[in-house]
């Protein structure tokens, strides 16, 4: 199943797509995550959780900018998933220092496992059945 959200003309570069398989989902985000776009991401993540998704991989490799409200959005989604260390993993490329940095500064890299490839994130977070 493919779910897509795209913003209006002012934010046409922002996009969220989700591929759902049972209780697992891979969410691919593209564009800038700030106060204008974070609500779209939050809606999509919470919608997935509401429909029964228990584990998420959020691929941020096509994200070019992230503000703290984007970090808060991921915290909000993580909170609504069942207890577990690997219920929400992130994919951030090794060359995306501007995306990885805010997670490191706020120490949220200790809350979200971060992988540099989608395959590694899926292997780490989605390879076992959800709790």
């Amino acid at each position, binding site marked *: 199943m493919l779910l897509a959200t795209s913003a209006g003309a002012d934010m046409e570069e922002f996009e969220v797509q989700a591929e759902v398989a049972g209780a697992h989902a891979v969410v691919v985000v593209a564009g*800038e995550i700030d106060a204008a776009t974070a609500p779209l991401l939050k809606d999509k993540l919470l919608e997935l959780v509401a429909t029964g998704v228990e584990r998420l991989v959020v691929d941020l490799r096509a994200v070019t900018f992230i503000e*703290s409200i984007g970090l*808060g959005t991921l915290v909000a989604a993580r909170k609504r998933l069942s207890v577990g260390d690997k219920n929400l993993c992130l994919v951030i490329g090794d060359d995306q220092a*501007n995306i990885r940095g*805010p997670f490191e500064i706020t120490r949220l890299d200790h*809350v979200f496992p971060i992988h540099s490839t989608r395959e590694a994130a899926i292997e780490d977070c989605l390879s076992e059945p959800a709790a």
Partner: protein
Amino acid sequence: MSSSNGTPTPIELEIPARPEYVGLARLVVSSLASSRRTLADDRIDDLKLAVSEACTNAIEAHVDVDVSERVLLRWSEADDHLQVQVEDRGPGFDPRSLPSHPPVTDPERLNFERGLGIPLIRSLVDRVEFDPSDAGTSVRIVMFCGPAELDAEIDGEVLPPGFSTAG
């Protein structure tokens, strides 16, 4: 863009207090930083994020009290630094009133979705001052840097084929 005494004239940008205009503020500030100063790309990213966080806070301050006035950004320069001032007309914000977050190892940490912007700004820039008043809040962000060196190799970047540095 200089006054009679050689000091660069400040540049001002007013944006409507709506989140969709913060991207424009980021674009203008990062363009000014990269074209007018010698600042490594990662430091420009730091500046861009700090200004974005300050603008988002300013817009939220306006929305909270239903103020329709614009948010003002003022860019200014000196020999050894640049400064970006973000001014709002909200009710005045005291950064010392921010609750401290539990450690990331504490499950309670997940109850704090907001309040990361100010700590991020403090970490990213060389100096930041918050000046709250009844008329609004002014955030002054300072980054130390040199003037633009248009023909120099900056931060180890490889120049395109056909270009070379002097000497």
